[in-house]
Every structure is written in structure tokens, then in C-alpha cells.
């Protein structure tokens, strides 16, 4: 039953990705300027521009261009970068591993902070503890990542004479150095995410703790630990999971600003550079890939819902 559901959801990917592909294709053609202009610069003659456009096939009618691109994508060939000539898909994948690692680490950090704090705030609600947790989470939600990142770098540099290593190294090449590179950006992203998760955990657990069945469990002689973790938290998990899914899905599309500040060659940076250079194939390929990842995360969250709550049953 579950497999049938997953299969159906995967089939629904087709129209979604089709829509996204048309949208991004049109968007790239609508914005002023094209790759030939960015390569040749402002001094280019009309002839050399036309020559270069012909090379990239940009002189063809729009539908022809789209079909050429799509034909390649469907056979697994996302084309080459118009700027560097590198194959697009391998480039996306190698940058995605960085983004993926960054997301995973940030998410872990945010959960470690947010879920226990949220639970504590709910248990001690309307006390000083609750009040401080709410203040901190409000800060987490409202302080922009770039400000947080800048302050973090400055404080570390000025007071601890520490500056994070530059240049990315894969986890399997040098795990320690890899973590050193990723820990600061992850901290910034993680604390940012933690605010929202904390607020959701607090309100969700608080609501569950007021339910009748919690009173039943207490009346059965349960320890607080059992009440909180086995019953309250598990029941409160659905809205928390929803917000976590959104955060992770968004972050997997690349954290443009943070990647820029910490010079991480992630997916966000790839897309940003490609857009400024009007590198059509790279932008189109990356957006399609990001949409695919987002849909997959959503599917994963929906599957987790039914695992958490027996009342949610997909047919």
C-alpha cells in the first residue's frame, strides 16, 4: 500500500518538473542579456555576438531550444556549461555533496539546541526559563544569517585569533579539516533554524500536555520522563517535522549568502554565479535539480508522518 503511494507520488514528479523546466527556461530568456554578451563584454560587435549565439544554438526558435535541452535532460545529459564547457550534471552533484553535508550538520545542530529547549520551555511554561527560551528563539528567528556569520567571524578573529580554513576539502579526504571548514557555517545556519523549531516544539508539546490522554497516562502512574518522551513529544512531532522538512528542503537548494561568506563552493554559489553570467544550461539544470530534491524531501516527510501517526494512512 505504502509502495503504491510512493510510486504515485514519484509519478507526480513528472508534471511538477515539467512545469518547473518551462518556467525556468522562459525566465532565463526573459531577463535582459545573454551568455554571449557576458562572455564578449560591451565592446563586442553584433557579428561576433551572432556567431557565439549560433554556437550555443541560441539563434534557434525558442521551442526548438527547449526541445534540444529537454531531449538531453531526459537522456541524462544536462549539457555543458556555456561558460566553462564543463558537464553540468557532475558539477551539480559534486557541489550538492557540499550543500548536503552543510545542511545535515546545520540541521543536527538546530535539533540538538531546539528540541530539548522547546520541551523544557513547554514543561516550565510561563516561568523565567520559558521566557528566556522564547527570547532566545525570537533572536534566532530574527537575526539574519549574514549578520550572525559576520559577528561570529569577527569575534573569533579578534578575541581568539582564529580564522576558519579556506577552500573546501572533502570529508573522506580529510575529515577533521572538512569539519573545521563546515562547523562555522553550520553553526550560523543551525542556530538560525533552531529558533523556528524551538518555537514549534514548545507550542506543540504544550498543546499535547493539556490533552486528556496525558492525564490518563499520569493517572496510570507514569514517570515524567515517560510522559514527555514516549507520549507528549511523539504526539507533538508532526508539526515539528513539517517545519524541519521545509527548512531542510530549502537549505538543500543552497545557502547562497552563507556559502559566499565562508567561500564554500556549494549549490547556491553555483546557481548565483551562473545567473550573473547568464549561463543558461547551468541555471536550468540546477533549478531542475533543486526542485527534484525539494519534492523528494516532501515525500520523505509525508512517509515519516504515516510512520509516526497510525491514523495517517495513505492509500
Amino acid at each position, binding site marked *: 500500500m505504502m509502495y503504491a503511494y510512493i510510486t504515485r507520488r514519484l509519478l507526480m514528479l513528472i508534471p511538477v518538473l515539467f512545469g518547473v523546466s518551462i518556467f525556468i527556461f522562459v525566465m532565463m530568456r526573459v531577463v535582459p542579456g545573454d551568455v554571449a554578451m557576458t562572455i564578449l563584454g560591451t565592446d563586442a560587435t553584433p557579428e561576433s555576438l551572432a556567431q557565439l549565439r549560433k554556437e550555443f544554438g541560441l539563434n534557434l526558435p525558442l521551442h526548438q531550444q527547449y526541445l534540444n535541452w529537454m531531449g538531453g535532460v531526459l537522456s541524462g545529459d544536462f549539457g555543458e556549461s556555456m561558460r566553462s564547457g564543463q558537464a553540468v550534471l557532475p558539477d551539480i552533484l559534486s557541489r550538492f555533496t557540499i550543500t548536503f553535508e552543510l545542511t545535515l550538520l546545520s540541521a543536527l545542530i538546530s535539533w540538538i539546541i531546539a528540541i530539548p529547549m522547546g520541551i523544557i520551555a513547554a514543561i516550565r511554561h510561563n516561568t523565567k526559563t520559558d521566557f528566556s527560551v522564547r527570547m532566545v528563539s525570537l533572536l534566532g528567528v530574527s537575526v539574519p544569517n549574514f549578520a550572525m556569520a559576520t559577528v561570529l567571524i569577527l569575534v573569533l578573529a579578534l578575541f581568539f585569533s582564529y580564522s576558519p580554513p579556506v577552500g573546501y576539502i572533502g570529508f573522506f579526504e580529510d575529515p577533521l579539516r572538512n569539519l573545521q571548514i563546515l562547523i562555522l557555517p553550520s553553526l550560523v545556519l543551525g542556530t538560525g533554524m533552531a529558533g523556528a523549531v524551538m518555537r514549534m516544539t514548545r507550542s506543540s508539546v504544550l498543546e499535547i500536555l493539556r*490533552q*486528556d*490522554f496525558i*492525564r*490518563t*497516562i*499520569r*493517572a*496510570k*502512574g*507514569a*514517570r515524567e520522563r*515517560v510522559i514527555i518522551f514516549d*507520549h507528549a513529544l*511523539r*504526539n507533538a512531532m508532526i508539526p515539528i517535522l513539517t517545519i524541519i522538512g521545509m527548512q531542510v528542503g530549502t537549505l538543500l537548494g543552497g545557502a547562497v549568502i552563507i556559502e559566499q561568506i565562508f567561500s564554500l563552493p556549494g549549490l547556491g554559489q553555483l546557481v548565483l554565479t551562473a545567473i550573473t553570467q547568464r549561463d543558461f544550461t547551468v541555471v536550468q539544470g540546477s533549478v531542475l535539480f533543486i526542485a527534484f530534491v525539494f519534492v523528494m524531501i516532501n515525500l520523505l516527510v509525508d512517509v515519516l508522518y504515516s510512520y*509516526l*501517526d*497510525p*491514523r495517517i494512512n495513505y492509500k
Partner: protein
Amino acid sequence: MNSILEIKNLSIDLVDGRKTYPVVNDINLSIKKKQRYGIVGESGSGKSLTSLAIMNLLADSLKITRGSIVLDGKHELTKMKKKELRKVRGHDISMIFQEPMTALDPLYPIEHQILEVLRFHFTFSKKQMRDMAVEMLKKVGISRPEQIMKNYPHQLSGGMRQRVMIAMALICSPKLLIADEPTTALDVTIQAQILDLMNELTEDFDTSILMITHDLGVIVEMCERVAVMYAGEIVEETTVAKLFSNPAHPYTSGLLRSVQSLGNRTQSLYSIPGTVPTPKQQTAGCRFASRCPHVMPVCNSSPPFLEIGNDHSTKCWLYAKEGVVNA
């Protein structure tokens, strides 16, 4: 004494910011071994709060300000440490609630929820606990216990869920079962079945019952003794037979008059004029005075709780001797 539960001078306050309002005032009652004791009253009379106070399950905004609750003649429940209280809950005293829909955790199968009670109080093997649970489910009249154990609460009907609640409540053979409106949310036909079941099982388990209800019919069906509560106070306390044959307090008489009787359907149903005062509206004196047909000047001061006959007490000036009134 062979009292299972002895409540003395219990008062509960509602704390709202810096203000406090009394919601339960000076309750006294004593439940004997194997006795079935009923508390009857409208919503807001404080009957549920009294029952929750016994298990110390009151919400944070409600505080026991005075009085004692003694279990089995030796354990003072209001002053118990959390750890000791956990041993009492579910083991010595257990509870059934009004809404079987929301009283079970929706995310766990029935088996987990029944076994939990055993796990909290004993160290049996999983196999033993399963066998006990199956046995108990059979006793509450569930015909396919193995099947039901695997089900989740949302897959069961209201009556089935209440049977599961009863099984859970009685599996540790408690000394006292507190049933807070156990049949209110159920169909009428199911109500009778559940009451019969409770009657039967508490007999088998030597369990006393404290029945909290607004339904005089349930009291007749189930209880031997009864306390009538109004606006946070007990206004009359006696045996069920005496209460029905010879109600003393004007509120009790009003309650009895507002019950529909089968033989007399031509008249419209009687209702007591006015509403129960909220804790914030309460004034000095008798709390029923504003709705009472026999109201007298003396009702402006709080009436004493008087013994008016053999095993029959009420809180009303009508029964005060001359001397008492003037005092």
C-alpha cells in the same frame, strides 16, 4: 476505621494571576471498603476537581489550600512525594474519564497502553503481562482480545474504548476506582452495559468506587451513598435510598423534580430557576440562596452542615434549631 478514602475539610482555590477564587470549599467525605460512593452535581459544582485532587492531578492553576485526603487510613495523599504518589496512581487508585475518545494516546496500540500500567508497577515478563492483558480484556467483555490489542484507539468504537479504559484501570486490582462521568459520552444502550460491567467487576476485584456524575439515574443504578455538590460545596450527604425518599436540601429537591419520570409526561420538565454562581460571583452566605424557593433572611450567612437524622446531613438553615439560628 475501614475507610478506603477519607477526605477532610478539602478546599481548592483557582489561582488567576494574583487573585484566588475558591472553587471547592470544605469537602468532607469517607468511602468505605467495597462501597460505591457517588458525587452528583451540575457542571461547575467542583465534583471533578474533587476527584482530580485525590490523585493530585489538578492543573497548575488549581491549588489545594486546606484539608487532607487519607488513603487506607495511613497515606496522606496531599503531602505525598512525587515518587510515592506514582506508586499510588494506577495501582491503589485508578481513574476512568468521561471522554474515551481522547483519553487514550492515539499513537500507540491498545496493547502498549495496557501493558504500560503493569510496567509502571510490576516487574513481570512481557509474556506474563500480555497474558494478564488478554485475560483482563476478556473480563471487560471484549471477545477478540488478541485482535483488539493490536488495534489503535481510532479503530475502536466509544464503548470499546471505555471497556479498554476499564480494563486498564482494574488490571492492578486497585482499592479505589474513580469514575468521572464514565458514561456521559456514550450511547444510552452502551451506558447501561458499561455500568453493569463496572458493577460486576468492582465486586470481583473488591474495589470501591467513587462515581462522579451529573446523572441521578447513574447514582441510583450504581451507588450506596451519595453526596450532592453545589457551587463547590457538599449540600447534602446520605444514603441513596434516603436521598430519593426524603431529600432535605432545596437544591436536591429541585434536582429530583427536574428528572423526567415515565408516568408523567404531560407536564413540561421542571428546571431550577437561575444558574450556578461562578467562583468569581460567590457571595457570603448560602450559595443556593439566589435560586432557593425557601430563602430566608438568615441565608445571608453561611449555613452549618447539620445532622438532620440517622445518617443524613445537609447544609441548610431550614433544619437549624432556633438556638442555632440565634447563635
